[in-house]
């Protein structure tokens, strides 16, 4: 656990001597507005993803319409679209010189009104579209795993479908919705690329301004601490919303009885799904393809692209495995140790998710320095050290995704199940092997997928920690986008999006396979008791 927190602490230590002068300037200057912008963005994106995610989850769970099965998984795909790529496509389409406004001017005259796209609202739309799958996936799982029986009871007792949704399903899904939107808000809080395209000044942008422009490392770290504080508030609110409620899994996950939609309702349902998919992934991909095909001289050598991509993939897989390993360790440890201290400490490992990438990266660079300082500048050693450092940095940064997934699935193991196993004579290590591991496996797979996708998309850490000669697809996008070469950035951007879809597809396959997992669990339990 100490291992996970160290890089953050290293950088944080610098924050113990606040430079009063700079802070006063910040308070009297841009900071209040930055805080306000940050809070507004958090509320908008949090709200936007909850509405989108929950509505789509309910639509695909409770109703039947043509294409429903396909939409069910297709609606997870926007997870593969990094907000910074969606952001620059969105701006290219909708800014003053973009095709949409140009067309409107040619039809309605030059003074036609158009909302300001480079605004908090613009970023909120882009981020909601790329982040809603977090809420959608968790909400769907909750609706399938927890709600059916209770929902049907409510219906039988005479509630209308809407009343049952509001009174039973949503309250039961609340912990999942809270967890999903907390993840979304962490991503929003630490984003600095998308908001900068839109010229929206959040506190994270402030960190960059102070660090890169005012050369003031200490104040930058103090601002990062402020971001962390906001994150802690978000987590606090999440815990509050989750409340003391504990909903354990009863029976196998299944869909509730679906109602077929007809007429305009059917059209509306299909239209809504297509609209979200179109805006979040189809239109952006089409625009990227258009750039790819129309701009001259963008076809760089493919072998280089493949090398970058395989670097990205290797890194993503390594980081996902490492993060899962530590998550299982931490979550298991927390569960088996009766001491609250250990449990608190276990929660602490997730803190990296709320720390901006560069802060983690600098902390890890310092640690690499410690490890390699004895070795002189032996290049081979440094390459190994910095690749290991990269994986380590990702474990620190994305532990929350892995830990959250594992912990959530462990939470679903009812105390009764464990008691039963014990009663049937299984010793703790056996319970671990035959009850916890299989159950944690499902969560671990989901967590691994989320970590892998985030690593594929991640930029600031890989940019700062990578060794000589090691380029990933996201670094490639950055090189081109930072020179405003959007069209040329289309190739690596498409590579990232398509690659990130692969783990999602894997996860979906697995989800389908594990549908019988609860039954399997019962069987394992019985054998555990017998032998």
């Amino acid at each position, binding site marked *: 656990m100490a291992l996970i927190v160290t890089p953050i602490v290293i950088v944080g230590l610098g924050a113990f001597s606040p430079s009063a002068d700079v802070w006063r*300037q910040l308070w009297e*200057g*841009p900071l209040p507005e930055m805080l306000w912008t940050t809070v507004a963005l958090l509320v908008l994106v949090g709200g936007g993803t909850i509405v989108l995610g929950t509505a789509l989850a309910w639509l695909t769970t409770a109703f039947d319409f043509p294409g429903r099965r396909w939409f069910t998984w297709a609606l997870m795909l926007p997870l593969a679209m990094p907000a910074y790529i969606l952001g620059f496509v969105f*701006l290219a389409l909708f*800014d*003053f*010189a973009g095709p949409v*406004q*140009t067309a409107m*001017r040619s039809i309605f005259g*030059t003074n036609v009104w158009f909302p300001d796209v*480079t605004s908090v609202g613009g970023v909120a739309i882009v981020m909601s579209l790329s982040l809603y799958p977090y809420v959608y996936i968790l909400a769907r799982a909750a609706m399938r795993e927890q709600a059916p029986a209770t929902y049907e009871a409510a219906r039988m007792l005479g509630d209308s479908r809407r009343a049952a949704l509001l009174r039973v399903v949503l309250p039961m899904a609340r912990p999942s919705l809270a967890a999903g939107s907390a993840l979304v808000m962490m991503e929003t809080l630490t984003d600095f690329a998308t908001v*900068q395209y*839109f*010229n929206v*000044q959040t506190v994270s942008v402030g960190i960059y*301004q102070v*660090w*890169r*422009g005012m*050369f*003031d*490392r200490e104040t930058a770290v103090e601002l990062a601490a402020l971001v962390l504080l906001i994150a802690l508030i978000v987590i606090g609110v999440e815990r509050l919303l989750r409340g003391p409620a504990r909903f354990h899994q009863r029976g196998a996950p299944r869909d509730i009885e679906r109602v077929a939609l007809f007429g305009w309702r059917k059209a509306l349902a299909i239209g809504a799904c297509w609209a979200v998919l179109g805006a979040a992934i189809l239109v952006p991909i089409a625009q990227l393809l258009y750039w790819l095909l129309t701009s*001259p001289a963008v076809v760089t050598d493919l072998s280089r692209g493949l090398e970058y991509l*395989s*670097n990205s*993939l*290797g890194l993503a*897989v*390594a980081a996902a*495995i490492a993060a899962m390993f530590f998550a299982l360790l931490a979550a298991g440890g927390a569960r088996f140790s009766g001491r609250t201290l250990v449990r608190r400490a276990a929660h602490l490992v997730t803190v990296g998710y709320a720390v901006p990438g560069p802060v983690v990266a*600098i902390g890890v*660079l*310092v640690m690499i*320095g410690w490890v*390699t300082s004895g070795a*002189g*500048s032996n*290049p*081979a050693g*440094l*390459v*190994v050290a910095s*690749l290991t450092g990269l994986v380590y940095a990702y474990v620190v940064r994305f532990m929350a995704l892995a830990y959250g997934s594992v912990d959530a699935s462990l939470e679903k193991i009812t105390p009764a199940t464990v008691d039963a196993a014990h009663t049937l004579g299984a010793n703790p290590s056996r319970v671990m092997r035959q009850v916890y591991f299989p159950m944690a496996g499902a969560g671990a797979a989901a967590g691994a997928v989320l970590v892998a996708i985030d690593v594929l998309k991640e930029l*600031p850490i890989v*940019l*700062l920690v*990578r*060794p*000589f*000669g*090691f*380029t990933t697809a996201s670094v490639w996008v950055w*090189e081109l986008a*930072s*020179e*405003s070469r959007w069209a040329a950035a289309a190739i690596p951007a498409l590579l990232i999006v398509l690659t990130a879809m692969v783990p999602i597809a894997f996860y979906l*396959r*697995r989800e389908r*396979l594990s549908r019988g997992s609860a039954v399997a669990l019962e069987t394992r339990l019985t054998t555990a008791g017998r032998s």
Partner: protein
Amino acid sequence: MMRNRSPWLIGALLLPLVLNGCGIIDAFDGDQAVRVYSGRHYDLEEAFEEYATETGIDVEFLYGGDAELRERLRTEGEDTLADVFITADAANLQLAADEELLQPMDSAIVSGLPDNMVHPDQLWVGLSKRVRTIMYHPDRVDPSELSTYEDLTDPKWKGRLCMRNSNNVYTQSLVASLIHHHGYDAALEIVDGWVANDTEILSNDIVILETIAAGGCDVGITNHYYLARLLEDDPDFPVEPFWANQDQQGVHVNISGAGVTADADNPDLAVDLIEWLATDGQESFVYGNNEYPVNPDVAGPPLVREWGTFLEDPLNAAEFASLNADAIRLMNEAGYD
């Protein structure tokens, strides 16, 4: 079934990482090489390849943001593998010099370059010039209406201006040079004047130029090579450059430059590479991005040569770089986003 195949799959995905890692390590066992951290990336590879063919010395490079690489140099200290640090702007070079991350070059070639392009102790040298000037739409603006950056505070420009956001280092350098020439308070008045003219703040230079072309604003301030790039794609692109402040100190010039790292393993190779970039390598360093060479003996790229000559602000980059933090404070104070 899945379970049995997974380890193989994972292994297959990890293999390239291991192989690449080994490949990178192998590369270090080869011949002499000079290693570069570069905040500038566009087309640099071609220049490095050319250098390798001419001298037989390989150049290995790591791209990144200027500030990030500087931070990495500082963290790595004497363990750093980098021999040369290249940036896309002056401020980060000067800061690296201030943090003692660079060492003097003591090169006759470097001292032969214009004074304002070189650090007084040769801790860094500019390799290309980027001119930040006024851009306008010729149908809606008569160049005789334009004169200086300061004049853009005139109410006649109200609602007609587009500029770059304050997070951008080029904006910061320009405002820093205003502080140098006028003092903090007068510079604040100028930026206040821009804000009072409802200047639209955009997040990159290309968008500024495209917005001018599409009629969203009439006048903007951008680096010259972005216009050159758009003209390469479309020779009829309807925006023209205007060289600002020709009756005063001249138009604001930023540099992309290089220095030798304080703990370089191969300081001699590093100096050699930088000297080459400042002489024989000038063309391949500046042409791809349509920048102006620092070496007066080298002709500029054909496209920007057509724009003729103009008076450049002779202010040494070290001067405006040292005012960078003040420039940010000033823009915050003026409410310039």
